[in-house]
């Protein structure tokens, strides 16, 4: 038969062991619950991740359904064609001469988005060319407007979407460039050949071309009328006409015109000239 002390010790030891067991069981349950929650959560997360949603898929489905609703006989495979972007380039070429500045600006309008465009659309090229700034400057005077650059815009449609890159040494073959040298002394010299524009400086051309002008001889009346000495008032008038857009000819016509014709068309000779 057990004594009370033995029973007491057995009870206390048993209680200690039981307490440890209960704690271990609680920890194990907690750990198991946490692990189970992690596994369940992970599985749920993986299930959620599996179907990869593609916006294009839904778009195709929607568009297909729409097309099939409208025209069931037609098979519709709607694919969004990639947007073709025409490479655009804006080139600003400036040729500067000392006295009269000739500015050639080629601007290509940017066409960024061309929807459904496997077809290449020609892009118009706008060529801004400087007109012939005609002005009369008295010797020793400096006209304030001679320092500025005057522009008129002529539009030309290019057949190809290319960028016009005018070289500085050569003028472009198109007639978009008009260069006018401002004569500082006597006679106006209009240079119609575009090749001479960048290469020859106007100050150097003046003496070479000036002798070609035949000075009128007031004594000889039978001969055709010589080119009169252009008075300053007329130059000013021409200048005003030019800027008012009232010129009777275009700049392109000026190439085919003789100098005398040009001057005569502009300024008919007064009757009392002879």
């Amino acid at each position, binding site marked *: *038969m*057990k004594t*009370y*002390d033995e*029973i*007491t010790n*057995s*009870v*206390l030891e*048993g*209680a200690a062991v*039981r*307490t440890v067991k*209960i704690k271990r069981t609680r920890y194990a349950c907690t750990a198991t619950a946490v692990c189970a929650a992690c596994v369940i959560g992970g599985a749920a997360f993986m299930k959620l991740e599996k179907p990869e949603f593609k916006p294009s898929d839904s778009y195709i489905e929607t568009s297909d359904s729409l097309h099939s609703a409208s025209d069931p006989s037609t098979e519709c495979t709607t694919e969004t064609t990639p947007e073709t972007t025409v490479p655009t380039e804006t080139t600003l070429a400036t040729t500067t001469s000392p006295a009269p500045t000739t500015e050639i600006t080629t601007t290509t309008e940017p066409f960024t988005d061309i929807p459904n465009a496997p077809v290449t659309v020609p892009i118009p090229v706008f060529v801004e060319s400087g007109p012939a700034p005609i002005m009369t400057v008295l010797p020793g005077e400096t006209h304030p407007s001679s320092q500025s650059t005057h522009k008129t815009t002529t539009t030309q449609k290019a057949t190809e979407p290319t960028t016009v890159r005018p070289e500085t040494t050569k003028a472009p073959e198109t007639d978009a460039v008009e260069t006018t040298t401002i004569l500082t002394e006597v006679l106006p010299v209009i240079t119609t050949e575009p090749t001479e524009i960048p290469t020859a400086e106007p100050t150097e051309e003046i003496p070479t071309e000036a002798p070609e002008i035949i000075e009128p001889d007031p004594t000889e009346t039978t001969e055709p009328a010589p080119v009169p000495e252009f008075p300053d008032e007329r130059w000013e008038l021409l200048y005003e006409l030019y800027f008012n857009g009232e010129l009777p000819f275009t700049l392109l016509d000026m190439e085919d015109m003789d100098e005398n014709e040009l001057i005569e068309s502009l300024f008919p000779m007064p009757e009392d000239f002879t």
Partner: protein
Amino acid sequence: MEKGIESYLQFLKGDKTAMRSIVESYWDTMLLFTNGYVHNLSDAEDIAQEALIELAVRKPKLEEEHQLKAYLYKICRNKALNHLKKYQRMVGLSPEAEEFIEDETAQIEARMEMKDSNKLLHRAMLGLQQNYREILYLRYFGDLSMKEAARIMRITEKQATAIAYQARQQLKKILEKEGYSGEDL
């Protein structure tokens, strides 16, 4: 306040030596009570010890002596019934084993300073059926009220009263059969 509940309150405060007073107060009655179910003192000791361990681990809030008694008896009863369920097969004890158990029971009764009349009554109760023995033991050896005994047995108080009356009639027949009259008890 009686000694058992006072020791228990000290034990709750951390005094582990108070457990010895609890064992000293309730061990023998618990052992005999449990032995009435399992009819095996060794198993009864294990069950009673388990009941005390349960008390030390769970540390229920008990304020009265009868609450502590009822708690211990209830644990012993439940564990004994579980033990009986677990070991349904009754193993016949050898004569030596029966003799050993009788000696052990006598020692417990002597340690309980049980009166001769109570010893006679306790031995006669072993021949009663289980619910009769339970109610009589809880009422007369456990000093519990009919209400507490009914709560332990999970029956109503009226049922407990009726069972106690029938248990006394049955016990009387057993004692009369063994040659004892009501005057001896």
